[in-house]
Structures are given as C-alpha cells and as structure tokens.
C-alpha cells in the first residue's frame, strides 16, 4: 500500500534505534494502520474513549510523580511507581514536542499483574489512539487497562 510522506516519516521515527532503543512497534508484523484500527475497535467495543483512558493514565502518572519514586496507592488494589529519568523524547509524530523520559509501573495487587507506560504513551493514546505495537515494552492492551482501571464495560 502506498503511503503519504507524512506516514512514512512517522513510521521511520517509530523504528528501533531512532527515538528509543526498541522503537514503538515491538515485534508486531502488522502495519500501523491496522494496529490503530484494531485498537480503536477494541476501545469502541469496551464503551470507552481514548481520551478517557488517557485521562486516567495521566491521573496515575501525576499521583506517582509527586511521590518521586515511592510507590503510591492509586485506586482499588492498585499502586504505581514513577521511575523518572532526566532526558526528553520526541513524539514519533513530528511537531508534537518532547516528553519526559522515565516509566510508570502500575501494579494490580489483586492479580499481581503490572503494566508499564511513559508520559509519551499517555500523549500517544490521547492524540492518536496509539497503544504501541505488540511486543513493545510499553504496549498497553486496551481491555487490560480498562479492567485494571475499572473503565467501561470490562469493569462489570
């Protein structure tokens, strides 16, 4: 499928070794459009919006950030730690600015499950509905986050 020059540029920036060591697409063999479409469908099916998910993730991020590396409780049975780093990383979509590096670990004490995401992840979800490719360290499965955060129908 032919791509516009803008799409080409975004894909180049998502490759490993350009903005971050592992890139944004993990080991996912699917094209970007398909990843976005599939996640969009999943989010729609759960009865939530990207904005709502991003807002909750951002709230967790801010709560964890104020604790400077200490674990904080962020909801029922959930705790988060923000491991900050000093650098900045640009968004793969050009012109969206730079974002703080570092990662937030959100742990569900009930299931023992943890997910990892970054301030850039929150922006990408909000602005593009992009949850990163499968196999990426910061890949968030919409159904999983909704279940953890108690959003949408998954929480029922």
């Amino acid at each position, binding site marked *: 499928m*032919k791509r516009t020059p803008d799409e080409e540029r975004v894909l180049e920036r998502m490759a490993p070794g350009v903005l971050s060591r592992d890139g944004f697409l993990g080991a996912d063999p699917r094209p970007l459009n398909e990843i976005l*479409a599939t996640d969009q469908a999943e989010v729609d099916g759960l009865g939530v919006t990207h904005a709502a998910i991003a807002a909750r993730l951002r709230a967790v991020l801010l709560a964890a950030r104020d604790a400077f590396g200490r674990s904080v409780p962020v909801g029922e049975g959930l705790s988060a730690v923000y491991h900050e780093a000093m650098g900045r990383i640009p968004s793969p979509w050009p012109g969206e600015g730079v974002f703080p590096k570092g990662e937030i670990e959100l742990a569900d004490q009930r299931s023992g499950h943890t997910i990892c995401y970054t301030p850039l992840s929150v922006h990408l979800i909000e602005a593009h509905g992009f949850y990163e490719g499968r196999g990426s360290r910061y890949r968030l499965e919409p159904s999983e986050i909704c279940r953890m955060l108690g959003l949408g129908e998954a929480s029922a």
Partner: protein
Amino acid sequence: MIAQTAGAEGTSLGYLMLILLSATFTDNILLTRFLGMCSFLSISQQLKSAVGLGVAVVFVTTITGALNAALYKYAIVPANEHFGVPLGLQFIVFIVVIAGVVQLLEMLIERVSLSLYYALGIFLPLITVNCAILGACLFLVNLGFHRNLLEATMFSFGSGFGWMLAIVAMAGIRSKLKNQYIPLGLQGPGITLIITGIIALAFIGFSGMVQLAK
C-alpha cells in the same frame, strides 16, 4: 449528444476542447478505465496530499504524454515500417521515458521553486509507477492522437486532470466521512472502493456523449 467528426480537418479549437472534455470526464482514466487506483486509494485520505499528488500527476502525464507521442510518431512507427520492429516496444520505451522524466522534473522543480518542491516534489517518486500515466500514453496511441502532437498533449493533460479531479473529489468525500460510522470490515479500502464505484456509476452517464474514434 455532442456529435463530432473523426479528425478530418485537423486541430480546430473545438476539437481540442472535445478531446479535453472526453479525457477529463467521459473517459476519465480512473473512474471509467480504472487505472491509477493504488495511490488513489491510499493518498485520498487528506485533501492536502490529494491535491499535491494530483498536481504532480497532471504535470507528469502532460509532459510524458507529449514526449511519448512524439517518440512513437518519429521513432517507433518508422522503426516498425522499415525494420519490422514490433509496435509493442512502446511499453518499454514509454516506461523508461516516464521514469526519466519524473527524475528530471524532480531536479528541475527543486532548483526552480523550492516551495513548489516542498508542496509536490515529495510525491514524484510515488507516481513513477502509477499505471494511469502509462495508461494515458498507451491510450493516446490507441486513439491515434500521436499523429498530432497538440492533440496528444491535450489528451494527456485531460487524462491527468481527470485523475486529479477524481482523487480530490474522493479526498473531499472521505474527509466528510471521517466522523461517520462505518462498519469495521469496510473501513479504509473497503468504503473507498464502494464510493469509487458509486462515482464511476455516475460517470457512466457520460458514456457515449463524446466519441473520438479516429
């Protein structure tokens, strides 16, 4: 019904206009002949890229159409008559010319006008293999326009312009559809092809209005 004559009297302005009309609307290279679909399907999402690509296609089609018509008339046909070279050689020669012209055009545009280069220069590599351009060259040979270079140029321009109108129309429709509900299975290429089909159906209404057989 617009009647016309087979080019008996050569190139009157009226006849040239007829060629333009035919190439652009009634025999639209994309909606009637279904050529140039792949970049049409993928680049028609944004109006800005669609216009950029459309203008690039018009440029390239017009220039290569004229060049290839001349080449056909003054090189391939004589070679065929004197040496028995098959006319099918046009396929190779046309494609080589298209590739070369695109390269040249890219360099020229970058040199002459940087803003124009930024607007559409990036699309040029995309259209080298656009089958609509080769198609336009082959059709003009089929319809005999190579005998008169003015007619050939007009036909090529019309083909390119018709392609551009189609992609810009599609981009406009798709931007309007952005926030509408489309079933998952039809999103992307699916709905685009359906829309293309519906527009093409409308264009069938034009068929037979202008006949340009020579």
